[in-house]
């Protein structure tokens, strides 16, 4: 009888599966303000990294079985707690998870919003309406400007530069879902020395956003 109780309790614990983001530089965990080797003899550091993850839903046989309401989550490297997107997924049967990278266009035209969407979070353009989906800032000695800075502010909610993207990954009940993004791979692919400043919606912003959504990988953990 006692064993049986313990068994039930442990079974309940298994159900608290979470969704989180893991940001890396190559095989290392990414830390803010830390210098990393770039190419062979250059260095790079990330000083700011913010990403909106939104509209998380679960699917079974390509049919939506669950959707998180008001699902707009700002991952901010300055606050480790924000790396966890959902603390507990519902104990239902699913085989895929769908996540949105950025903010969809409907939300972009809905006026002032609160929580992570509050414009005080620094993810809203002021001179022109629209959310910044992804903000990556840092320094790299290859960039020949003042302080060797780069600033990538990716966003855009209007055609033809609509940058919001949804991606699906295989998932499994009872397994934690970890969404991985390798910043080293990103900086190499976009050739950061060539594109150091993006501050408004554009074709380049759209292409880089697409690149990032394709670079996301998922790891399922027990």
């Amino acid at each position, binding site marked *: 009888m006692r064993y049986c109780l313990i068994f039930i309790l442990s079974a309940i614990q298994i159900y608290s599966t979470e969704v989180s983001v893991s940001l890396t530089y190559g095989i290392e965990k990414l830390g803010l303000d830390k210098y990393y080797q770039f190419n062979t003899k250059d260095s790079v550091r990330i000083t700011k990294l913010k990403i909106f993850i939104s509209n998380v839903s679960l699917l079974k046989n390509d049919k939506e079985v669950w959707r998180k309401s008001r699902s707009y989550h700002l991952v901010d490297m300055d606050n480790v707690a924000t790396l966890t997107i959902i603390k507990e997924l519902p104990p239902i049967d699913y085989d895929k998870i769908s996540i949105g990278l950025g903010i969809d266009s409907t939300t*972009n*035209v*809905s*006026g*002032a*919003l*609160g929580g992570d*969407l*509050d*414009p*005080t*979070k*620094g993810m*809203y353009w*002021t*001179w*022109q*309406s*629209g959310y910044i989906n992804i903000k990556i800032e840092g320094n790299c000695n290859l960039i020949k400007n003042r302080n060797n800075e780069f600033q990538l502010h990716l966003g855009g909610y*209007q055609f033809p*530069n609509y940058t919001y993207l949804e991606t699906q990954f295989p998932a499994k009940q009872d397994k934690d879902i970890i969404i991985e993004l390798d910043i080293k791979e990103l900086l190499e692919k976009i050739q950061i020395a060539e594109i150091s400043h993006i501050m408004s*919606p*554009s074709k380049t912003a759209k292409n880089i956003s697409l690149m990032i959504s394709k670079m996301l990988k998922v790891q399922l953990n027990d």
Partner: protein
Amino acid sequence: MTKYFIISLFAVISLFAFSSIDSTYLLKPSHFPAHKYDFAKNSLKVETIELGRALFYDPILSADNSISCASCHSPFNSFTHTDHPLSHGIGDKIGTRNAPALINMAWQTSFMWDGAINHLDMQALAPISNPEEMGETIENVVKKLQNSKIYTKLFTYAFNDSAITGERTLKAISQFLLTLVSADSKYDSIVRGLTIYTLQESNGYKIFKQNCNSCHTEPLFTNGKFERNGLPIDFTLQDFGRLKVTDYVNDYAKFKIPTLRNIEYSYPYMHDGRFKRIKEVLEHYTNGINYMIDLPPQLKKPIVLSSNEKVDLTAFLLTLSDRKYLFNPDYGYPKYLLDYKAKE
């Protein structure tokens, strides 16, 4: 002392609430189309409108606490800035565009001369952040408001708890702006069947309907669209209008069609304030259009008006003046609130 302060403040606010109960600002004038603003997401409340009014008139929104919204949008000029072709900001900086008149905001879907702003709630962010206007950040504005005792109280009255956020700040400003309804001009009285045009105004109205109404459409006197109106480009400003927003070649040099309501008070005219008088504007449309620019169909055929016709048209345009709008006590400087704040 604090208790006294709260009681007296509450008394003032509730007094105001009483005086506003029969105010028309929550209503849609019967000859107006449906509102464009979604009130379900920000339903009007007297206390929130009052908070918005305090914010509108308070220079706390600017980096050096010197410029308020009202600095460039004064009620006595139909909420624009006379004498200044281009808007002024902190440290005597001068912007690149004429401050537009704020009229009937609940019927607009895009804001600024180029429509860069897609929602009334987000409008205030632009002047707050523009280095040539208020040069501030919304993050810091919220911090300053959080440190103010009176604003903590005003936010509590408005939102039932004392949290001061960017969302609430912007929504409160929207609420005040939504109350700015001008529908009490002579034109409106005529539509309501309360009076009639003079012969001159009546002639002017006919000319208006033939030549102007397709863009400056009744009863709002704008169709809310963007057009090129044949103004020669001022290359000292390098302002190509909506092109910057949409990145669409056809939007080159297009600007928003402004309302003609209260045109008597909202001079100077055009996106860069280049014309001081209505006369100059009519001169532009009859003799000044640059036909080398690709024009909308309405302007392709030259507008020909005799000097008498111009006088008649002007007489009609003056029937759009709404003096009650200019001197509405509900729109004015909230002296009692900002006096309290000055004592903090």
